[in-house]
């Protein structure tokens, strides 16, 4: 498969959530959840997106599939900018882009049977009816490792891992090309995480899927991703091949993140140096100019509070936004 052909290009994507006050709902400030982020996702690859809570990774994922209307920027899917399309014009793209959600308990409608949950997409896009639809649902259940008799049962009868599989089957029902996995494993226990990850990998190989994998578990992201993007406070700070990122992290924030991964060998763990970040993550409400990481950065220089670092390619597809380079 040609892994270097871009499926999605994100250009200067911004998503601000306005804070409105008063009777006339005047916008007094903006929460800059995603602020000027650009990257591409190649066909058939898995792009990991990591960062701490509240850094905008989930918002990025949701904005790309247009669950949120982007404030500005372009989302170029297969050569066409979908950022400004209306919900009606989005209809064909809704079949191509799907999402797997974080919370397997909240993401399934408790009043519908599993069959109807999976079949909903088939009904909305009027893909199949009757026997064909039933068979398709059974096939999908089977594909995600569930019993096809489960179609008539309700979500509350399933465990977390099984529910996540139902969520995956729902996403697969429309035969998508691109799936945003929004922390699909963080709500599951460790033994089930591996099962679900392996299944996602199998599905990717069989169906040629492209994933945007949002997570905060760094070792899991390394395992599944071809490339990894690191986000901090609405900005992409580093993006490169996953092995490269683990071997040679350039941004001070990435270095700190990676030093937090537990090492299973006690001797190695004692020998290595843990970079502890001082201070709190600043508020994303109208952040001050300059680099957003400057307050917690060990290498902060005067320029960091004056000028915003450019997100640039240092060669070999290793992007970083830092004044050190």
């Amino acid at each position, binding site marked *: 498969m040609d892994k270097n052909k871009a499926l999605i290009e994100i250009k200067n994507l911004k998503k601000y959530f306005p804070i409105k006050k008063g009777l006339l709902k005047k916008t007094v400030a903006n929460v800059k959840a995603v602020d000027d982020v650009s990257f591409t996702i190649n066909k058939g690859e898995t792009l990991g997106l990591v960062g701490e809570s509240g850094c905008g990774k989930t918002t990025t994922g949701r904005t790309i599939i247009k*669950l949120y209307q982007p404030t500005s920027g372009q989302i170029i899917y297969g050569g066409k900018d979908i950022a400004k399309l209306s919900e009606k014009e989005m209809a064909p793209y809704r079949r191509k882009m799907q999402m797997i959600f974080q919370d397997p308990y909240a993401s399934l409608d408790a009043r519908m049977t599993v069959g109807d949950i999976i079949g909903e997409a088939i009904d909305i896009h009027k893909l199949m009816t009757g026997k064909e639809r039933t068979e398709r649902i059974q096939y999908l259940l089977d594909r995600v490792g569930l*019993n096809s008799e489960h179609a008539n049962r309700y979500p509350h009868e399933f465990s977390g891992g099984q529910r996540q599989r139902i969520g995956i089957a729902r996403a697969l029902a429309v035969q998508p090309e691109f799936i945003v996995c929004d922390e699909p494993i963080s709500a599951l226990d460790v033994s089930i995480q591996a099962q679900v990850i392996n299944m996602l990998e199998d599905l990717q190989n069989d169906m040629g899927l492209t994933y945007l994998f949002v997570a905060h578990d760094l070792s899991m992201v390394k395992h599944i991703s071809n490339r990894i993007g690191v986000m901090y406070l609405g900005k992409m700070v580093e993006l490169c091949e996953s092995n490269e990122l683990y071997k040679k992290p350039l941004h001070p924030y990435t270095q700190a993140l990676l030093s937090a991964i537990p090492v299973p060998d006690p001797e190695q763990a004692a020998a290595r140096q843990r970079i502890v970040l001082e201070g709190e993550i600043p508020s994303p409400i109208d952040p001050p100019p300059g680099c957003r990481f400057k307050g917690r950065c060990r290498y902060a220089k005067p320029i960091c509070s004056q000028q915003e670092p450019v997100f640039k390619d240092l060669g070999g597809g290793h992007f970083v936004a830092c004044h050190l380079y």
Partner: protein
Amino acid sequence: MEITKDLFERVPKDERDLNKIVRPSLTYWQDAWRRLKMNKLAMGGLFFVIFITLVAIFGPMLSKYNYYSQDFAIQNQGPSGTHWFGTDNFGRDIFVRILYGARISLTVGYVASILNLTIGVLYGGIAGYFGGWVDNVMMRIIDILYSIPTMIYVILLMTVMGAGLKSIIIALAISYWVGMARIVRAQVLALKQQEFVLAARTLGASNTRILLRHLIPNSMGPIIVTLTLSIPSAIFTESFLSFIGLGVSAPMASWGTLTSEALQVYLIYPYQLFFPAGAICLTLFAFQLLGDGLRDALDPKMRK
């Protein structure tokens, strides 16, 4: 202890089938019904409600008396074998008049509640789902309606449209939906942020579909409780309006008019007041018990 190979034994294939669910499949409604059945008071209420509804429909057909024939030979008789609840001062059988009254009171209760269910659910659902200025405008309208005492404008409407069954129902329907709309709006506001709604939008579901297939079915518990509790309140309002002379006109009688008529003679013939007032009390009580029981049964936190 040394662990050797022969300590292990192969698990038979059928026992490995961990994916099987043994527990019988219970839908939300089956589960709620199971819990409701355990609540004796609520079941008592439910049986009484069914009983009074059946009696109101079929009772008058089986009786040899009717509500309008006057017989001055049997004025103001006490309860007896021939006239179970006695007769009034026109010699009309009070039992049959109460049955006819039940028809009117229950019709008002059911029809007004169904109308306010329809209006309230749609209004509250739209306000909650679309949010923003739509919600703001719609809720301010509700606030205005809420700030006017209901009774005042029910009475105003009654005087404009004239007394009668139809105008009572219309007046109640257009004034009582406000509470339902607020409940539904609150539910929809809480539910629309849930991931299953986002999932439906990712699949390309239309707003109508999300509202009708996901949000309203998930709010059904509180809706049904509000509905059940709004029936007695409608019955009570109808009785009250009839009592003050704004209800159905003679010779038709609702429970309110029966009570009102009996009040004039209650020192001499207390049974004439006792029976219609008792019918109102028991019915309201039964609906309240049923509503409370449903509230418990439909609460998802009670699931075991």
